[in-house]
């Protein structure tokens, strides 16, 4: 691995992730609208919203502390650092040795903590409610995530995302029941972490059952823009992560040259597109579940991941 392509691919990757994030949210919104028979907003609308929000003068509550000001930066910074670690179009980027799955989970937990702190800063009922629920859901999502990671740690012998992706791309693993179960578990975790249906409805405002939006009610202007960007980047990160683990085809090596990168970019765009369509279809077809059913949903994901690990023990024991 030579240094220059590694640096270049890393920078390109991060820039593309940041650029694609609002676009992806817009595409999902547009697809959902089309599926429901509406015209739908332009997929570029989230970018326009961000531009508008950044230009507005933010309005802070009188008793807002430094937490309200700093938390969005911390959250977006942590999410961007995590996004830089997840391989998108190329393997072997500069930060590939750091791309640890548990570290990604830790960075996302840091972003979540910052979000919950910001929600509690002013002391409102909605913010506290959302923060309490978000942390409670995370308590169920994290073990499911770690057990899904366990399956990959057994298959690849490491939790390094780049190494796992490379190994899976070589097709040495084959189709496995475990992979299927881990996919289901990670999908459930991804839905919960991103506040998508059936866990939370991303399209509502001011509804008693909401979680994620409730925490943002007091932020405005550039703070709100940062939060929106963070949410979009987190969704992009999760979809890229799912693509890297379960559809490892077509990812380029960092030293593959411009043509190889172009093919990798194309593959990445297709994967994200497919996942976005799947997400839109799924969200259109399903209803939101009651808040206290969510632990069952995530608990089932946890148990599926555990089951996957058990089957993997079984087959490694037999081999």
């Amino acid at each position, binding site marked *: 691995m030579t240094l220059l392509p590694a640096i270049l691919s890393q920078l390109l990757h991060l820039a593309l992730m940041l650029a694609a994030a609002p676009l992806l949210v817009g595409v999902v919104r547009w697809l959902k609208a089309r599926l429901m028979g509406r015209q739908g907003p332009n997929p570029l609308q989230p970018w326009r919203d961000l531009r508008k929000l950044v230009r507005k*003068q933010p309005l802070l509550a009188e*008793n807002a502390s430094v937490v309200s000001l700093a938390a969005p930066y911390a959250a977006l910074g942590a999410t961007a650092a995590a996004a830089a670690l997840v391989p998108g179009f190329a393997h072997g980027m500069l930060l590939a040795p750091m791309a640890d799955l548990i570290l990604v989970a830790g960075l996302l*937990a840091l972003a979540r*903590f910052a979000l919950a702190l910001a929600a509690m*800063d002013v002391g409102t009922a909605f913010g506290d409610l959302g923060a309490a629920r978000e942390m409670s859901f995370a308590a169920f999502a994290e073990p499911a995530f770690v057990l899904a990671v366990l399956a990959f740690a057994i298959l690849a012998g490491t939790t*390094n995302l780049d*190494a796992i992706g490379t190994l899976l791309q070589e097709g040495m693993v084959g189709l496995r029941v475990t992979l299927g179960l881990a996919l289901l578990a990670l999908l459930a975790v991804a839905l919960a972490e991103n506040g998508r249906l059936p866990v939370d409805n991303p399209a509502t405002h001011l509804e008693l059952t909401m979680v994620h939006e409730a925490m943002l009610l007091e932020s405005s202007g550039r703070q709100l823009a940062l939060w929106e960007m963070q949410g979009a980047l987190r969704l992009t990160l999760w979809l890229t992560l799912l693509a890297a683990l379960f559809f490892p085809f077509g990812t380029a090596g960092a030293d593959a040259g411009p043509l190889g990168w172009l093919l990798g970019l194309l593959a990445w765009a297709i994967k994200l597109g497919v996942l976005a369509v799947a997400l839109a279809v799924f969200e259109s077809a399903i209803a939101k579940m009651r808040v206290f059913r969510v632990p069952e949903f995530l608990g089932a994901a946890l148990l599926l991941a555990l089951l996957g690990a058990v089957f993997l023990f079984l087959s490694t024991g037999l081999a």
Partner: protein
Amino acid sequence: MGVRGNSFPRSFPASLRQESGPPDCGFRPGGPLPILTTVTVALAFLLLGLLLLAPLGALAGRGARLVHGGGIAASAGFVLLAVAGLALGDGAVLLLPVGPPWAPLTLALDGLSAWFLLLLGLVGVACGLYAWVHEAAAPPRRLVPYPLFLAGMALTLLAADGFTLLLGFEAMSLASWALLAAQQGEAERAAARLYLGFALFGAACLIPAVGLLAGLTGDLSFAGMRATPPQGWVAGVVMALVLLGAGSKAGLVPLHGWLPIAHPVAPSHVSALMSGAMTKVALYVVARLALDLGGPAQPLAWGVPLLLLGTASALLGALRATQETDSKTLLACSTIENIGFIAMGFGLSAVLRAADLGPLAALAAGAGLLHALGHALFKTLLFLAAGEVQHSAGSRRLDRLGGLIHAMPLVALCALAGAAAAAALPPLAGFAGEWLLLQALLSAWRVGSLGLQVLVAACTAVAALSAALGAAAMLRLWGLTFLGRPRTPRTMGAQDADPVCRAALLGLAALVTAVGLLPGALLALGAPAVARISGHDGVAEASFWLVGPSASGSGYRPLALVIVAALLLIGLVALVRHLSPRPAARGPVWDGGFIAPPAHLPFGDPATQASAAGFAQPLRRMLGGPLLAAREAVERPPPGSPDPARLESGFHDPLLPALLRPLLRLRDRLAVAAERLRDLTIRQFLGLSFGMLVLLLVLLAWLGAGGAP
């Protein structure tokens, strides 16, 4: 540090050889390692100094400053000497000129002792600084036991034989009990009584454990015990006794019930010492007796009880921490959680060692040790911050606090560092320990037995669940205390801490960050301690930049992470500044459109802000039912009645009553039986004592004939 870290593995086997040779007993001036002997002698003098400080505590007033200044100096000495001990290798055994002839008191500083002495010293300095300010006018009954408590912990860590270990452990127990009993109030007395009961129980378990480890030869020195590790059922009994004895002091489930009651009662610096250091000393005893002395050549199941108890502690402690409404009780429950993580690391290390997976065993042991250090620091920080809040805002109940970040910004920010570390957020101390623990758990499938693999997978899930619950608990603690609106007028009068206390808190926050950023360098320094527990020399990849299970596999690079995150943050801030230069305007809080509060509620309607119990509600409903006997009942008034409806909710830990109730019943039954003894004739009394004597003689004859292994 980095240079040392890289060079350490090469120099390490030499120190092992030195230890594995014939045990060198006694103080040999001019021996081969004079500098190490000097370290041990200096430690002995520090212990003596602490003992001499105790009577000074009787002079209240000026004595207080003397006691606490001496405590700070001794703790700082511990830190320096522990680092020297870690860097230089295992020291010689020092024979003290005191003690009974059949069990001479011996001291030695090896890697494991030095690691725990390091954390004891760091905690001791911080607690001493806090006490310097807040305990200046303390009565003698709170001053005299304090240096004895420190000395007891240090003696336990430095002991080189079973008797000294027990002596130190009991001194620690009694001195900490005296500190608790010095508090006034009925609840405090009850807590002290409960604590004493558990301490006596622990002693009753540890003494036979040490006796069994010494075996029939009666050689109480560690070198002698290590030469003859227990086998068969004796080994099982030793493990059970050590877990009961030291586990009850450490707060392992199911013997944790005293901890959330007793720890919060003490003054905050004593709470911090108990939670941050004393529980670690108890874990040190577990590691020393069960893993170092009894650990070699044990079966696969040797570490399983420790792993299981650790897992249960982590879950129950974390869940209780999400529910408690008293800040110090919450912190004590979080201690149970973190003790559980450390015990998991140690237990997993024993399992992996038995399976001949040396590098992984070292990884698990390193995870336990690093988390022990991290937890000692951030828990001390949080307890001291809770003490500052109690001192300044007049309460430690979360329902009476709120909005303190405006009044006490520095305490708030330091406490945020502690809370974020306790919530296992990168790049702070808690995350480094839990990352290593998860790596060890995720690699433990290599052991190969299917039952154990499934068990470890379940433990992995519970560990992740507990870590996330711990994060929720820490968010709740910090958010309810420092964010939002004040919940009582008293909170408005809070002021930031005294400069000395600020320095202590800032220092602890810096240490928490440093441990998080330099786990590799610390583990390279602590390689002798890792080797003691795991029997394998050090964690595979531990250097300034990197820590990880192997050179090719996954690694954690906290410094690189911080650099990347800092670059991203700088770019982000610069970009937003450029795009949006206008300063924020301030306005009334929107609060979902609630109307402005009436004039008689200057901080707004308390009902529009979550209470401590309200914030805990989701997790209480999701997990509290089966684990904490949580209940919720809505009481609706009959139609037409003007009474308000009421929601009653609560929880309790079912384990402590479950432990105590049979004991109460046993006491009653014993009392009835003893009543019957009074009616015996003198002949029957004599017969009883004679029978007992004959029984003891028979036992002696059986033991002498070699009936026992």
